[in-house]
């Protein structure tokens, strides 16, 4: 089976496509609307050999899955595509007045460093798209802005954002890295935090989600894109990514040979916080 993209019912956007028969190959498409990180579907077919169409960022999450032994390299055939950025689907949904206007790239694309997947079995080159698309913008600009605020201001900011959370768990379901057989949010004996869509429970859920992705999130942006109430989850992920880069010089999804951050330690790791 090959997992790729096909045109959605609206004739504009894309949706995932599962090709199992030769005649279905014609359905496959590739363009700026192919926003989804399809590697999330790999967990649906354990032990099966799967071909997957992957952008450079999506490949990073495949790398993490390989590092974490969730996937055997021989079971995934990576069809890499060169990519110069995909649309900001969230902005489009929020009422950008026409498709063209919204065809600006998402935040992850603006700070993307490579248009070519780091590993793949087959590469579809795109001469036009070749080359860096990064605007050389400080990818942590908005994180720095938040960091500059006082702790109280930050709390207020996040409380306002999380108060809208409806606990639909789309952020979790859309995340390739969220593969726990039983998520902490679904446990009932004991229940670790409130199941209700109240501030207390929402704060716990969103922070646990972000922290559990520390050193694993590759910033594919799917959680923020999926969030129906517009919580800027990417900011949280980016903050943790930045801290980890600064503290441990570690970048998630960069090298398949490297041990996962949380599974390794170095005697030179910062330890000032251990008292």
């Amino acid at each position, binding site marked *: 089976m090959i997992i790729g993209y096909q045109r*959605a*019912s*609206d004739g504009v*956007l*894309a*949706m*995932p496509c*599962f090709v199992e028969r030769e005649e279905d190959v014609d359905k496959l498409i590739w363009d700026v609307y192919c926003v*989804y990180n399809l590697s*999330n*579907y790999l967990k649906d077919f354990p032990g099966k050999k799967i071909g997957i169409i992957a952008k450079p960022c999506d490949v990073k999450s495949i790398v993490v899955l390989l590092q974490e032994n969730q996937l055997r390299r021989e079971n995934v055939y990576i069809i890499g595509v060169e990519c110069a950025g995909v649309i900001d689907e969230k*902005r489009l*949904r*929020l*009422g950008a*007045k026409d498709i063209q206007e919204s065809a600006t790239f998402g935040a992850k694309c603006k700070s993307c460093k490579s248009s070519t997947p780091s590993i793949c079995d087959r590469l579809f080159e795109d001469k036009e798209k070749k080359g860096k698309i990064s605007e050389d913008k400080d990818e942590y600009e908005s994180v720095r802005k938040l960091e500059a605020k006082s702790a109280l201001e930050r709390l207020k900011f996040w409380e306002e954002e999380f108060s*809208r959370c*409806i*606990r*639909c*768990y*789309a952020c*979790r*379901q*859309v995340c390739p890295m969220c593969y726990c057989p039983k998520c902490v949010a*679904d446990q*009932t004996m004991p*229940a670790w935090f*409130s*199941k*209700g*869509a*109240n501030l207390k429970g929402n704060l716990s859920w969103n922070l646990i989600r972000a922290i559990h992705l520390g050193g694993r999130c590759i910033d594919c942006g*799917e959680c923020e*894109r*999926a969030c*129906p*109430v*517009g*919580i800027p989850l990417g900011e949280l992920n980016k903050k943790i990514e930045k801290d980890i880069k600064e503290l441990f010089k570690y970048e998630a999804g960069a090298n398949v040979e490297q041990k996962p951050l949380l599974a390794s330690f170095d005697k030179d790791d910062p330890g000032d916080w251990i008292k």
Partner: protein
Amino acid sequence: MIQKIVTKEELYKLLDSFLQDFEAIGPKELANRGIFYEIIKNAQDLYLGDDFTTEPVKKLFLSPSEWLFKCQYKDSKNSLEEIVLTKTKRIIIGVRPCEARGLELLDKVYNSEYKDESYVNNRNRTVIIGLSCANPDRNCFCTSMGGSNVESRGTDAILFATEGSPERSRGDKDGKFILEIITDKGKEILGSIGRELSEEEKKHWQQDKEKRKDLVKTKIKVPEDLDKIFEDPYWEQVSKSCLSCGICTYLCPTCHCFDLVDEERKRLRCYDGCAFVDFTLQASGENPRPTKKERYRQRVFHKFDYFKKKFGENLCVGCGRCIRYCPVKIDISEIVDKASI
């Protein structure tokens, strides 16, 4: 029914005068976040454009999570304390015809044979002022679900932007609305403003209203009897990309399944949805709907089969939220339409 023409200024002035005695709730735009029903402090904050609120008005009647009762253990005695329901009167403005119809469908479950105290209380304390859709988007399919973008069912009064603007988000551009007052409650609230339409204008408006229904472009065929294809491999095919999240059910104006949880000696009722893996998980470990196929089929069958058999109508109003917000663009209108072949 009274038909009037009102200006935006008149309407906003009247609303502002209510803000002291009533709670007024309406759509408000939060930059880069979406449009949400919020308590309105100033009528100018209202968003009466074309785009829909992310969450349907359902959440103001059937709360995403609410406490049902509290328990106490004091002096070796157990006691049970009811949660006091608020009686504050409120006006909700900007409710779409499809959402208002959704409430009428919820009434069949929560306000008929069984009366849910909290839901009925919320219904009774609310005046609903609708807002007709001047620019339905491509995910809307209300006219195929027995409703329409100009229908007043379920509202106390309803507003129509006088000119459907070709530009999205500017439905109220010329600042005038046709106001139709449906119930006595609506008359009490809005009866004083605007001028009534003349006979000539009424005739013209009736024709215009009919024409506006054609703005809903997506038309689907709703199957008479899905039962026949219950075991069809079709359900596996269409549900393959489903992520098992709760967006479609939580944002649906008619989905109403809930979970009961005990927390901090209180009982909590919160939304639950058939797309979740754990929704039907039993204490024994058995799960009758173990895969996406069973779960997605359940959603379609509840809406287009079971509910119709029990209550006479489909449990879908065609608002398109589940399509618009689905992270992988699963389109229930297309799936149901194709199921009838």
